[in-house]
């Protein structure tokens, strides 16, 4: 609602006008009372996440903020065009990198970045996934620095999570403040599950006969995102399976039903590549299905997202994304990349070491906000610790400036207060379509001044509105 200028309320973005007017009309305690009810609602429906390393019975709530984040129709159209372009390029890149590797031949990205990368799966070479789709689901993390400046922070091309929060946050807003949705034209997000089912079904494998059987593969009830796995399966009417429910029978992947083993056509897996198949990948995996990868290569099952997509969202490759977009689409990228120093290159490393106090340093293979240095917020000791790490293993890191991120208001006991946010729309890709539900997951750093929005680090979420204007 407030621009990057700060919290004086003078530069309210136009998209927020209608919400602001509504808020000003509310009786004093209504919003804070509702805000408390929200927590009970989430507990009741069980929308919790488990925290790694803590008691497995500990299911925590992600804080929810009642003030929605609002994007105008124009902003959304611009953003979604840019995302579509980027996602198209990512899929083309994956096809290329697992076939002729034209981009390497053209010298647009260095060979070593692929060859020495754990996220690159040589086993995928020369294989065409059903429908030519590698990334059925992508969650593109976006940050905003000014009225028309959107940056892509990360392309989550493996198993992006958070879509259940997009849906449930909307659900609770509808329950708490139904009149808002009558007064303000807000795009619906509830189509997501049926779109997901449709686009997964469109990628059924050659062996599929008739209506595809779709299933969500989860590591199990102790996984931190278990709620989301069951939620998505439930919403799209798919089975929720674990590795122990599956085995390879007659060249198909089959699930153990009450009437014996029945083939599964499309598996939306929420486990990492490494754990998919103990025969082909990590032999210690208890989560996967022995032989599933061989069935996949033979056209007996579709795995979504395809194994090996992690090479596209690897942080070491991130800085090359503008080149990748140009190379495959022949167009200028519509969305900007955050300027990035590659610590693997000596002169860039020197500059990073020089400016550690003002930069964000990320581990190339890290995720979830762990293994990260935020220079301006770090102590001297933390900075020195990272300096040592960088010197020891420079190619394990990249560095970025701390962008002057825009803020949006959250509801606090003292009234509205600005907080930093990021935004993850969810993109569905099928052979002849790319669908982006108008909305997404807005994560917010609940602590004043904080830039870390990850739920494992004290981040919260809020509803995201795309105005139908």
């Amino acid at each position, binding site marked *: 609602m407030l621009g990057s200028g700060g919290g004086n309320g003078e530069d309210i973005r136009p998209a927020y006008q209608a919400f602001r007017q509504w808020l000003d009309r509310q009786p004093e305690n209504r919003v804070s009372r509702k805000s408390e009810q929200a927590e009970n609602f989430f*507990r009741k429906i069980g929308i919790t996440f488990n925290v790694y390393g803590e008691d497995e019975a500990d299911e925590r709530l992600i804080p929810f903020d009642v003030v929605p984040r609002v994007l105008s129709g124009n902003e959304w159209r611009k953003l979604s065009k840019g995302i579509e372009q980027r996602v198209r390029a990512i899929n083309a890149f994956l096809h290329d990198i697992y076939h002729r590797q034209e981009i390497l031949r053209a010298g647009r990205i260095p060979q070593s970045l692929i060859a020495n990368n754990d996220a690159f799966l040589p086993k995928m070479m020369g294989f065409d996934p059903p429908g030519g789709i590698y990334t059925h689901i992508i969650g593109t993390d976006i940050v905003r620095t000014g009225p028309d400046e959107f940056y892509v922070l990360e392309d989550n091309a493996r198993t992006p999570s958070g879509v259940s929060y997009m849906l449930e946050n909307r659900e609770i807003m509808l329950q708490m403040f139904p009149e808002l949705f009558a007064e303000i034209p807000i795009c619906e997000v509830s189509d997501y599950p049926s779109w997901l089912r449709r686009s997964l079904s469109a990628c059924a494998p050659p062996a599929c006969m008739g209506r595809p059987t779709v299933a969500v593969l989860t590591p199990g*009830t102790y996984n931190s995102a278990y709620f989301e796995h*069951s939620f998505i399966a439930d919403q799209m009417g798919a*089975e929720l399976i674990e590795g122990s*429910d599956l085995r390879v029978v007659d060249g198909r992947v089959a699930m153990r*039903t*009450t*009437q014996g083993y029945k083939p599964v056509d499309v598996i939306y897996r929420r486990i990492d590549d490494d754990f998919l198949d103990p025969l082909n990948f990590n032999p210690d995996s208890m989560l996967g299905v022995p032989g599933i990868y061989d069935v996949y290569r033979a056209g007996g099952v579709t795995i979504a997202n395809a194994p090996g997509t992690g090479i596209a969202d690897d942080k070491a490759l991130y800085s090359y994304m503008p080149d990748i977009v140009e190379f495959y689409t022949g167009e200028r990228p519509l969305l900007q990349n955050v300027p990035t120093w590659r610590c693997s290159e000596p002169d860039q490393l020197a500059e990073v070491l020089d400016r550690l106090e003002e930069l964000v340093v990320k581990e190339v293979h890290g995720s979830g906000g762990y293994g990260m240095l935020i220079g301006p917020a770090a102590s001297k000791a933390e900075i020195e610790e990272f300096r040592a790490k960088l010197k020891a293993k420079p190619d394990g890191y990249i560095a970025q400036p701390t962008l002057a991120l825009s803020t949006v208001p959250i509801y606090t006991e003292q009234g509205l207060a600005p907080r930093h946010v990021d935004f993850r729309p969810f993109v569905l890709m099928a052979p002849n379509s790319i669908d982006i539900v108008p909305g997404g997951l807005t994560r917010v750093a609940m602590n004043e001044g904080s830039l870390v929005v990850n739920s494992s680090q004290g981040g919260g979420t809020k509803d995201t509105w795309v105005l139908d204007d």
Partner: protein
Amino acid sequence: MLGKTASGLFWMFRYLERAESTARLLDAGFRIALTRAGSSRSEWESVLTTTGQLQGFRQRHGEATSTTVMEYLLSDRSNPASIISMVKAARDNARAVRIALTREVWEATNESWMTLDKLLSGRIPEADLPDTLTTIRQQNALVRGATNGTMLRNDGYNFLRLGTFVERADNTARILDVKYYLLLPSISQVGSTLDIKQWETILRSVSALRSYTWLHGATVNPRDIAQFLILHEQMPRSLAFCYNKICDNLGYLEKDYDNRTQACEMADSIRTDYLGRSMEMIFDDGLHEYIEDFLASNSRLAKQITADYSFEVTA
């Protein structure tokens, strides 16, 4: 449906049923303790025996008193057979089969867990016990009501009903197993106050005192009670009622899957063998042996269902 899901539904409802049954037993035991404080110890021990908890209890506590038994069976989280542990087990199963439940059933189960988790978190003063036990039964009724009102009558429903009635038959039979001597015509001293109280306790522990009175008037006698709990087809906790439901639900599965499993055969023959007799025949052959054999057959049926519908991975 997935074998794992069928198993989760079956066990979720077994746990709910057992938790409720334990609450009824505690309620009945508590009444005896209130009215006849002197001889309440043996009553508490019989509650522990009925729930199969006497040994576990003795390892942790000395004498069976209202306080110790209540704590052990109600709120002791280290005892897997306490009500709080079973409600949690039901909720964990529900969470694992979340997609096979309606939102209403899941929310009722989850809320029931949250309510009882809070209610049973500290020491419960004796004066609060009746209210606590009422809340447990009410929470259970909410889950049952949501299930009844919103679930699709498909195979999943059949499995959860099978869990309910296999467990209920087991619980009723266990109550009979512990109290059978009170029901034997030869030993009972008809009309003594002591026995009437004991018989009432049996009826209370299956929440059937009122319905028994409705059917038989004020004359409480052991033969009628035994008949009521074993053969009466309208009494919702009788063995006959449970087996009618079990056979019905296995029958729906047989039709649905077009497959008559061994479990279907077994349930039918248990019904014929044990519930197709008269009360006189049962007494003549020995009530105690009858109940022991029934309990064993019932648990064999549960194993057969597990095998026939692929609840678990087999080599």
